């Protein structure tokens, strides 16, 4: 180990980014897309928005809980745990705010769709504008996450997630071609799931679980 003066900002970025190198967030995002596709398919089959919403919500809750449990079981024993400094905490808070804003925008957009007729918005306008809102929302929120969390591949995920809206609605409007939701979501989720799986396997190989500390070190974790 050579004595050198490390770039403290780079060291912090590298330490934090390592916690997103486990592939779990990638898998969470990819599976969320699959859950959305299930919801959209159920809406098509049963023509019931409430059933679709219930399925999507239940799937999202199960996925988020699984994500948290896996992080505790897989990541913490390998990488340990740390409390970030003030600047990183502000970045994390801003990211959560962006996610909340994105969720609220999504709910408002779908709410507007529900009452579009009453507002004098034509179905054709909805079919053009809703995918644009979806695309912009995905690009902005995942772009903010990529920037604030220093994980550049989230920019790419923003594009993939954002393309779902246009892929589902525009071919229908332009060419009368209806792409089934599981296919549209599945095609765009596949690269995210593949990257997530590859990263998870690499993570498990690269970072073994450390054995228990010797008693004399008095460093129980």
């Amino acid at each position, binding site marked *: *180990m050579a004595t050198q003066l490390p770039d403290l900002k780079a060291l912090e970025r590298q330490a934090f980014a390592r916690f997103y190198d486990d592939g779990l967030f990638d898998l969470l995002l990819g599976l969320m897309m699959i859950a959305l596709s299930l919801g959209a398919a159920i809406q098509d089959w049963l023509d019931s928005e409430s059933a679709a919403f219930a399925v999507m919500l239940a799937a999202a809750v199960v996925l988020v809980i699984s994500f948290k449990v896996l992080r505790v079981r897989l990541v913490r024993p390998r990488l*340990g745990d740390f409390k970030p400094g003030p600047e990183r905490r502000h970045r994390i808070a801003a990211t959560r705010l962006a996610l909340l804003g994105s969720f609220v925008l999504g709910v408002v957009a779908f709410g507007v769709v529900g009452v579009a007729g009453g507002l004098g918005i034509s179905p054709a306008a909805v079919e053009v504008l809703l995918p644009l809102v979806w695309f912009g929302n995905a690009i902005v929120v995942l772009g903010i996450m990529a920037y604030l969390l220093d994980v550049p591949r989230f920019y790419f995920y923003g594009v993939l997630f954002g393309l779902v809206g246009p892929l589902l609605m525009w071919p229908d409007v332009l060419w009368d071609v209806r792409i089934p939701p599981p296919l549209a979501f599945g095609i765009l989720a596949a690269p995210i799931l593949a990257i997530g799986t590859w990263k998870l396997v690499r993570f498990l190989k690269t970072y073994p679980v450390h054995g228990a500390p010797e008693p004399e070190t008095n460093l129980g974790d």
Partner: protein
Amino acid sequence: MGLPNRRRTLATDDRGGAGQVGVDRLIHEPARLAIMTNLFVVESANATYLLQQTGLTWGNLGSHLVKLEAAGYLSTNKSFRGKQPQTTIALTPVGRAALLVYRRQLFAALDPISE
């Protein structure tokens, strides 16, 4: 307790080794420098985190932590998460200041050297 103080800081008139450039030798040791810098960029961390970040063994990490804690550069807090014992380690304000001083001193010492 003269020895620990003498070990920690060497004045410019001290003879030999790192003392010639007047840096804090406690921090100047590579493993301890790695521990200090990794703790500097976070608020606190557990021992597994430091083990992963520095590449040290449990034994090495433990012995360096004891030295840094004795110097007042870091504090350790032992607690339980469920039934698991956990040690949380953080730099003290003294440790943060000492690392910044060390950095400044080393830059000053290297400044006259041209490539």
